[in-house]
């Protein structure tokens, strides 16, 4: 698999342009270092010839001092160059990481259902880091070393054209060999990185689920998978390393050939009396100088192969496009309650049966709808469609009379609030979990929301208040407390439509009353859809809809349905009521 140079250049220019000053400095430093390397063999030649010709000692001493000075300069330049190149590398890859993360966060739920967080870590850390050297070093090293080689060859030609020719030929063969091998390992490195990603995604998932593994007694099973995945990593890495091995050994061999060429050419011309011993030494030194750039270019090419694998995977990632995109937007929305309308909506998830077909209903602004039905009947799906987390295959969904596809996603989602049964929490403080790391939301705002919810007493039990740490996945909180946090989150905004999906199913009866009062406040002057399995939860609804197998079984005002003995709702209330009577 060849990675066209074009793609490299495109990636390069995009992320290096903002750092052009640093990149320029880096170039200057590297060239200075090269110049220093070209000078020293000349000093050596002067030294040897002067010594063998028994020249003045003072000349020899001066040569030594200049040598030391130049070497010192080269060191300092090298440190500065390394620092600058690291800086360039980090800045560029950080920008790339942010771009990839942003792109992926904006992808549809369908994407995230297929890719674990561990995999994302491997992509953003592993693949992008493989690119780091590429950004910071590649062009300059390749260009710089190319210049070094040309400089060396030019100086060699200056001494004797036959020597120049011999070593020039050697350099050419070497470059061709290296160039030809440029891409041999990319495919294998890609496969190897994939195996790494699989392994770490496996690990991350299992580490997050140790409670389940332990209580199922599934440790041997998990360990077996662990070994399986490790083994696959080894297998693929071995292949990739084999290719690398070939490259390295070829370099070693060519190194010797270069020296051999210097020996023979140098000795031949010396035997004709055309050059001095010092010059033979010079030729020899320069021949070695030819090898180092080739080695460095080779190393850059090796890193390029790794970077190539990283680029391939990143491009795959960036090529994924969200199917759900912003509409034209800019349609003015009031801040009041939104009406809801589903018009002949049909939807099914990728690989499962049809969830609903031809679903239509309307809900007036400010009304509260109680949505009932068996699990899997499509209730949660309705909320996901309203959020445009998924898109119906057919039909139109309107909020406030406007087709939701015509709005910008951010506008739409800011106007709809949702509390779900599973609350996603971060390993961060309570504050950060509530504000999603937004520093502009003040503590006083948060506290006033907590008070409005009547949660002050619960909040007091938190050891450090807003600074209390929550563990990853919310392990330190009970599910009920997680729900309370979810409610607080939603209260921090001002939605026109509120969807409560099984919001109070995890709360015990007494505490639920607390929430119910707050929910009343939330639903005042807002449209609400309350999805519940429990009949008690829908007491506040103005209208009731019962869904079964993706179809509306019953839809009407709650009181009317309640009073109609033939309605499904009143029957459900009967069976439900039975368990409520003491």
């Amino acid at each position: 698999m060849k990675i066209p140079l074009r793609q490299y250049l495109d990636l390069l220019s995009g992320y290096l342009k903002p750092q052009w000053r640093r990149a320029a400095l880096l170039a200057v430093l590297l060239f200075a270092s090269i110049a220093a390397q070209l000078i020293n063999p000349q000093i050596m030649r002067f030294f040897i010839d002067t010594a063998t010709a028994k020249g003045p000692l003072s000349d020899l001493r001066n040569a030594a001092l200049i040598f030391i000075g130049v070497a010192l300069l080269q060191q300092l330049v090298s440190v500065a160059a390394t620092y600058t190149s690291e800086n360039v590398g980090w800045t560029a890859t950080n920008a790339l990481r942010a771009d990839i993360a942003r792109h992926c966060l904006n992808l549809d739920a369908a994407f995230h259902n297929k890719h674990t967080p561990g995999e994302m870590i491997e992509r953003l850390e592993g693949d992008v880091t493989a690119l780091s050297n590429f950004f910071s070093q590649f062009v300059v090293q390749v260009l710089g070393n190319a210049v070094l080689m040309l400089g060396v060859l030019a100086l060699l030609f200056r001494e004797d054209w036959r020597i120049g020719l011999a070593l020039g030929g050697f350099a050419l063969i070497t470059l061709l060999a290296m160039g030809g091998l440029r891409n041999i390992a990319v495919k294998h490195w890609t496969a190897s990185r994939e195996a790494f990603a699989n392994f770490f995604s496996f690990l991350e998932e299992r580490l997050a689920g140790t409670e389940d593994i332990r209580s199922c007694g599934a440790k041997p099973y998990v360990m077996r998978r662990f070994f399986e995945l490790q083994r696959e990593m080894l297998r693929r890495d071995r292949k990739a390393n084999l290719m690398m091995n070939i490259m390295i050994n070829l370099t070693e061999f060519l190194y010797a050939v270069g020296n051999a060429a210097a020996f023979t050419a140098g000795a031949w011309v010396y035997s004709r009396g055309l050059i001095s011993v010092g010059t033979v030494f010079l030729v020899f030194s320069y021949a070695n100088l030819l090898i180092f750039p080739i080695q460095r270019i080779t190393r850059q090419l090796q890193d390029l192969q790794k970077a190539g694998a990283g680029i391939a995977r990143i491009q795959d990632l960036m090529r994924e496009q969200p199917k759900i995109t912003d509409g034209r937007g800019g349609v003015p929305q009031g801040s009041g309650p939104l009406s809801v309308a589903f018009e002949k909506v049909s939807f099914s998830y990728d690989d499962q049966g049809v969830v609903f077909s031809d679903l239509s209903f309307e809900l007036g602004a400010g009304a509260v709808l109680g949505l009932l039905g068996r699990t899997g009947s499509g209730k949660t799906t309705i909320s996901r469609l309203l959020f445009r987390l998924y898109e119906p295959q057919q039909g139109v969904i309107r909020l406030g009379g406007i087709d939701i596809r015509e709005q910008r996603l951010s506008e739409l989602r800011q106007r709809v609030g949702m509390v779900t049964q599973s609350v996603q929490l971060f390993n961060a403080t309570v504050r950060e979990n509530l504000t999603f790391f937004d520093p502009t939301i003040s503590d006083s705002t948060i506290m006033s929301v907590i008070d409005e919810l009547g949660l002050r007493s619960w909040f007091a039990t938190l050891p450090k208040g807003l600074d209390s740490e929550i563990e990853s996945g919310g392990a330190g909180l009970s599910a009920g407390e997680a729900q309370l946090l979810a409610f607080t989150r939603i209260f921090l905004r001002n939605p026109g439509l509120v969807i409560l999906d099984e919001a109070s199913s995890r709360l015990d009866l007494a505490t639920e009353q607390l929430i119910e009062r707050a929910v009343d406040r939330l639903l005042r002057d807002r449209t609400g859809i309350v999805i519940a399995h429990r009949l008690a939860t829908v007491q506040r609804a103005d209208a009731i809809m019962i869904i079964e197998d993706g179809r509306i079984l019953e839809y009407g005002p709650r009181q009317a349905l309640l009073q109609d003995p033939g309605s499904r709702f009143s029957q459900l209330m009967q069976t439900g009521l039975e368990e409520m009577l003491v």
Partner: protein
Amino acid sequence: MSEAALDLGSASRYKGLKPQATWRYVWSLLKFRPRYYTLMIVLRIFIFGVGGQLVGLITRTFFNELTSKAPLRFGPAALAAMLVAVALVRAGVIFTDIALDVHWWFSSSALLRKNLFERLLDLPGARSLPYSPGEAISRFRGDVEETVNFLDQVAFIPGYLAFAIVAFVVMLRINARITAIVFLPMLVVLVVSNLAVSALQRYHRANRKAAGAVSGFIGEMFGSVQAIKVATSEERMIEHFALLNEKRRVAALKDRLFHELLHAVFWNAVNLGTGLILMLAGQAMRAGTFSVGDFALFTYYVAWVTELIGMAGVLIADYKQMAVAFERQEELMQGAPAGSLVKHGPVYMSGKLPDLPRLAKGSEHRLERLSVRGLSYHYPGADRGIQDISFDLERGSFTVITGRIGSGKTTLLRVLLGLLPRDAGEVFWNGEPISDPGSFLVPPRCAYTPQSPRLFSESLQDNILMGLPPEHYDVAEAIREAVMEEDLEQMKDGLRTLVGPKGMRLSGGQQQRCAAARMFVRNAELLVFDDLSSALDVETERQLWERLFARQDATCLVVSHRRVALRRADQVIVLKDGRVEAKGSLDELLYSCEEMQRLWRGDLDNANGG
């Protein structure tokens, strides 16, 4: 994300490995694949000690023959040919070395990862990690790699030494005075490096920590995508991500700069040495006691020894980084017996994978009675937990634990099952005390469905069986008991359906029922479930209880506040503020216990709300 991880008792008491411990760990790791490692050392001695030396000596001979008037022994062509021959052999040896290295590298890193992973799986299940999984992953990756990379470099040392010793001997024989002066700056260098070492360690730790923060945050971000979308917080999350990345960049640059400066000091001292050779050799060359060939050899050696000193310096720095890496891995081990991190064991790089143990249910697993006495646990640094819980349950009984939010119901289950480490109290199985409930109360004795079950991105069947052989365990029956058979019919791929990361491709109710099926299939004596029915509607819940009770002899311990469950219970335990408020049948409690009445009435008020 803030700096401090949750205080976890033993993890926070841990303050870092002592130097002797680091060396013991290194030694243990080196002994793991001794044949590979020894062979690598031998090959590297050959590469440097023999191959490297030959190149230098051939070069010297070449120049000496050029400048001497004596008849040629070899001639430039022959010497050139010898160079190429040596290179060929060397190439073959390097090839072999690299091949061995890959295998050794993977085996060694597999050992570290295995020990880390097994330790984490052995810790109480609900308290296994002091930080996010993503942060832990950075230790499995970066820190393990640093450790093994260092050891890889150590295998070069004998080769370097071999080269250096031969070089030293040869140079002394040619001109002792110049040799001595060349080596003086080298010593200065080593002294300087040792002084700077502790500062290096500090920067490196900070660097790795910043990397862990980034890694952890990525895991968090992509584990909560829906919440982020719903809150339209994508941009804010990315901003925070960029902030963490920036912190890391600064830390990494500091780390690298220090490293490089140290490096530069080495090289300058060495260049000084080279300059000194030039100064001293001049006189000797004029006098004819130091040939051009000798000069060529000395510069070759100095170039090499420069490289080697540089590598030695890098090695010293890497050693300190490796010590930090070991420290971070040891932290993850959280107080495991000393040396567990590097304990030898099979890593199955080839050959047959380990068999899964077959655990058939026998009479020794039978439950007659489970007793709990004085069970207590306190969340570190918080005012929550359970205190002095005691109760009994008999075979075939149905016990419900109930209470308001935060009263300790889930905590109780976790402590009972050893998923949290108890502070005090005893649990008795048929009258015998259980010392390690985490290992004892597992299938076939006991199976558990947590409040927020975790599914893994595998097939539905694999999530249910989790390693049990399908021919001996009835998946279909478990699915029926979990009231999932209709959902299964809807799925195109049936049991082979992939559930996605964290089971995301299933609905919330399906996830919970899948976890229930996982519990049911294990045919355990005691079934423990925490709030199982919260994701189920009335109908489904009713069916689930019905089918469960149709099983003869099911012994269940359930957390619930549902009336269906409370009515069925043989025993209800009411918890309040972490203590047992009351125990008894539902009727008794409704009569005598105010808290129970309050809990019960809460639901009634809602129903009558009209």
